[in-house]
């Protein structure tokens, strides 16, 4: 693998991490904490939405995020031909 390809791979990885972290931050610190008072005016069943994000929703999103990240990283590894075996 050339130096350039190595760099390109690493930048692609960093971009992916930044994207996942943006969602991670948005659901927990955003919807769960900063915007929670505003979101609480919207109801999700019996849940005020801000409360739901803080005590339920962000955790579901975290689980999904890890699997999406693992899948996309697998694709990147193949694309740049750095995958194992």
């Amino acid at each position: 693998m050339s130096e350039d390809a190595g760099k390109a791979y690493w930048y692609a990885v960093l971009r992916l991490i930044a994207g996942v972290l943006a969602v991670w931050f948005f659901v927990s610190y955003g919807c769960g904490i900063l915007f929670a008072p505003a979101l609480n005016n919207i109801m999700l069943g019996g849940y005020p939405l801000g409360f739901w994000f803080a005590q339920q929703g962000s955790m579901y999103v975290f689980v999904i995020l890890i699997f999406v990240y693992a899948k996309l990283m697998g694709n990147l590894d193949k694309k740049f031909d750095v995958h194992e075996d």
Partner: protein
Amino acid sequence: MSLQATIYLVVGLTFALYIGIAIWARAGSTSEFYVAGSGVHPVLNGMATGADWMSAASFISMAGLIAGMGYGGALFLMGWTGGYVLLAMLLAPYLRKFGKFTVPQFVGDRYYSKGASSVAVVCLIIASTTYIIGQMTGVGVAFSRFLGVSNATGVFVGMAIVFMYAVFGGMKGITYTQVAQYCVLIVAYTIPAIFISMSLTGNPIPQLGLGGDFADTGVSLLSKVDQVVTDLGFPKYTTSTRISTLNMFVYTFSLMIGTAGLPHVIIRFFTVPKVKDARASAGWALVFIAILYTTAPGVAAMAKLNLHATVNTEVKGGGDLFAVESSIKYDERPDWMKRWEVTGLLKFEDKNGDGRIQFYNDKTTDPVAKANFDRAGWKGSELSVNRDIIVLANPEIAKLPNWVIALVAAGGLAAALSTAAGLLLAISSAISHDLLKDMWMPDLSEKGELMAGKIAMACSIVVAGYLGLNPPDFAAGTVAIAFGLAASSIFPALMMGIFNKKMNKEGAICGMVAGISFTMFYVFAHTGLFYVKGYEYYEMFGGKNFILGIEPNAIGGIGAFVNFGVAYLVSKVTPDPPEHIQHLVESVRIPRGSKAVDGAH
């Protein structure tokens, strides 16, 4: 069969199961069963990680704290799950590629220095010991109820059992035993939640029941809880932040990065077969952890409602809470209260001498609530309930069958013992192997190393048990401090080791020292020097939470920034790391075997 006999039976059966599996596993091929993760399906590995992770703090303490804190309790939920996202993306795959087995080994090699490695060992010992103090608090609660003794006696019995558990191999590293422990844990946690959700909302799934209607009244459960707690002078359940938005933000952050910096979690990802597996196995671990964590908010809100309904008969009916007849007579209190009074964790004091129990927030600033209390002739809240008992008492409060109560006791003991023993093993190997054998006494014999490990374990259990008698906070709060300590020391060093090629040993060492010193300084200001009560010094700085109103449990989030900042500045004014270390970092970033990458340069 009596309740106590049922508890002994169920606890005995579950322990027989763990020991049985351990013996069966030992009898099989050793290499297959001892190395966690190799040849084990990723899903089972995720369960085992879940059992490792969910300790007394998650199982016994957390829901009770959420019940007390309301919405603000979300910081535990988000903090202790969100960290797995960081772990999966920022650390696990790279540490796996690095191919070392412990955190101090990684730090020592990446920062080409035994000094850095020693600092990492010391940071790990400080964080792990604090963690065990929290566990011992939980162990004390579980054993005091299990044996019907005072909390202090419970801690002593717990110390002895945790020590034996750890010395006899602790059943750690045997993945199938941990899978069994996870199953007992999760069944014990969810069964009572399902029963209670069913009876309060008609929906058996607590995650949905919490968003459902209260007993066919057309009023949602959460608005019912909101109304009851505000009437009794507590802050509104669904909106009460923890101190301030900033504090909640920093607290959550501290727990998240602390998760990604604690040795007993990270170590599980060192041993998976491939880099690819390290990424996915964090996901599976989080799936199994999330089952408990998404159930906890339901347990919290419903236990809170049931607890108030026990002492005030009009809570569920919606009548006048302040009528004389609404508060139950102390002499007619339910049996579960008597059982918990023995432990000293639940206390009644008849302040207005009417022989009835009034349980409310007497420190409220709400004038309406205050006027109601005065008119009713209430002279102060008469019941004090330790928050750490809520989960264990929950099935008793809800009048669930004896076997459910016994199951919860078994789950609580499994949670507390497995994690406490695991941490003790981590401390003992850090001292005997990473510190003594690798650095100070290279000619130490294997026997001597084992002996040193056992002595280290005995010392840490005595220290943790002593401090656990007078803990700095509830179990989950103390554990949160441990996460803050890991967050401010280990996580930044690991992350910069991978993401910043130019980070050198001077930067890493100064960063770790600065981060953990800052955090310890702030924590000890509030809890007393080395957690010994009576040596608090926050007054010198103008009162509690003197930095931006942030509580000591959350300060690790700031400590991590101190670490990053100091490390960056120091690395700028000191020489770059040697060329081969920079190449090492480049190779760690790429999943394929390091050889192929080396060849290209």
